[in-house]
């Protein structure tokens, strides 16, 4: 049952297509001419430090914020004049938890379903199913303020699914959650992806992007810095492995002289030296031989790549 006339239902395989997308707030350029293309059924991640323009991009996609310039098609429809039709088919999990505190958990679902003109009996059934899906069974009659942070977040995801959206937008879905809640949400998002839901999420947790995303873009200061599959980006730009050691700057040169060959790159940040290499085992052996302690040998992660790309200074 589609609530839309066939003619304006998007059929495109590209669920989101942005070209030269710009968003300005006065003189501040939040999004500075980005191109995006999200395919049906994939999980796409927007990565970037605070102020990179992730939230502004998502808000334009769900029609809450008008474009300053550029083109933006969502589900084959132009966001400028089809906001209602687009919003009917997408689910939004916003960064701020905006559950309705005046209502119970079940009422939150029913009220939300009504905005999508879902009949009450069907909404009731779906609400129960979604509560089970998000492991919130038994909470239907509870008021929002009685839920923990993790429960609220899970409920927010569940609520965004009440109308069975084809595209789910998530703005930092697990920020501030404990590991259990975070892993549960990741599990459920992967489940949704297997069911064919397209996921577009913003995050500054690199592990989250690595766990979920088929493709990511890294945004910084409103621009896209790089795009690709998480694993490839890490291997291509960082190498496979990292050796971390705590060593003072004065001792650095003497120490590096002990390491044979030059198949590594170095980065120092504060008291820590990072050696990126595909042959880390040899490096570690060389360091152990001269009795250097405090050596951490680990696989390279998206976080290494991200920090390499966007720099290590704080963003506020």
């Amino acid at each position, binding site marked *: 049952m589609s609530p839309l006339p066939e003619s304006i239902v998007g059929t495109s395989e590209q669920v989101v297509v942005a070209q030269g997308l710009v968003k300005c*707030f006065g003189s501040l350029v939040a999004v500075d001419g980005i191109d995006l293309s999200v395919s049906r059924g994939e999980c796409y991640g927007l990565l970037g430090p605070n102020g990179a323009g992730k939230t502004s991009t998502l808000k334009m996609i*769900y*029609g*809450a*914020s*008008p474009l300053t310039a550029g083109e933006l098609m969502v589900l084959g429809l132009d966001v400028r004049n089809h*906001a*209602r*039709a687009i*919003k*009917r088919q997408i*689910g*939004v999990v*916003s960064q*701020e*938890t*905006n*559950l*309705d*505190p*005046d*209502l119970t958990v079940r*009422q939150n679902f029913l*009220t*939300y379903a*009504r*905005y*999508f*003109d879902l009949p009450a009996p069907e909404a009731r059934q779906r609400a129960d199913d979604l509560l089970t899906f998000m492991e919130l069974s038994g909470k239907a009659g509870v008021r929002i303020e009685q839920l923990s942070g993790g429960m609220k977040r899970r409920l927010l995801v569940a609520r*965004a699914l009440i109308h069975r959206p084809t595209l789910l937008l998530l703005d930092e879905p697990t920020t501030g959650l404990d590991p259990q809640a975070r892993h549960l949400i990741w599990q459920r998002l992967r489940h949704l992806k297997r069911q064919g839901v397209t996921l577009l999420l913003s995050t500054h947790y690199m592990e989250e992007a690595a766990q979920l995303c088929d493709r990511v873009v890294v945004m910084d200061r409103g621009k896209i810095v790089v795009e690709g599959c998480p694993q490839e980006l890490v291997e291509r730009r960082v190498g496979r492995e990292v050796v971390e050691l705590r060593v003072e700057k004065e001792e650095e040169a003497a120490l590096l002289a002990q390491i044979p060959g030059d198949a590594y790159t170095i980065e120092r940040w504060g008291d820590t030296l990072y050696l990126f290499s595909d042959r880390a085992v040899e490096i570690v052996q060389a360091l152990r031989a001269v009795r250097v302690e405090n050596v951490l040998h680990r696989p390279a992660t998206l976080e290494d790549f991200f920090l390499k790309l966007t720099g290590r200074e704080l963003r506020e």
Partner: protein
Amino acid sequence: MNALVAVLPDVSRGALRVWQRNRDSFRGYYLAAIVGNLGEHLVYLLGMGLGVGAYIRLGGDVPYLQFIAPGLVVSSSMWSSSLESTYGAFTRMTQQGTYDGILATPCSVDDIVTGDILWATTRALLSAFTMIVVMAVFGLVRSPLVLLVFPVVFIQGFLFASIGMIVTALSPSYFFFNYHYTILITPMFFLSGIFFPISDFGPVVQWAAWSLPLTHAVSAVRALTLGEGLGAVLPAVLWLTVASIFLYLLAVRMIRKRLIK
């Protein structure tokens, strides 16, 4: 044609959905809301009507209690509608993120403003209804025309809700509403002919009083409850209608400006 489309709000069934959301939340505190509003106006009615009224002789055969009762119907509506569209709407817009949540659904900003204004109007009607029941209990309803009070209160409630939304659109914090209540609402309560006939004052005061929306509502509702016929009602209703439409369109524009960034 295009100019007309630009002025008209983009309203859909979403406005009804927003109204329903507010109704559902009201179920959690309706008793407190009704008792609070009724109690305050009952104190005015009895304190002023019976207490002060014992010392007051108006021209004609209308006792003072009967004179002020219709004005208190209208003022209780004004207060309900104003509180709902300022503190209520502001809470939903800022603290609770209710508007943000709704904006991610097929509802538009205009649906939200319209739904919230219609809800505040509903609160005005509820207040008027309880006050009319009280009037009937005290034997202060003289005419079946009293039923026509509700359409008048609808327009009046809509008008004050629109004003409230305009103030909400401008408000940086809850404290800002003090201006609304001390500069506009409270003076209006005393200057719009609820407690004394405006006709006794000089032309400047009269002109000032008739520029206040509450004065028109008081005069219309008083004529209806006293059974004075529709002659005085129609001009008042026309005035309120025109003002409501203008203020509503302004409210929509200003909330849009506040929310759409």
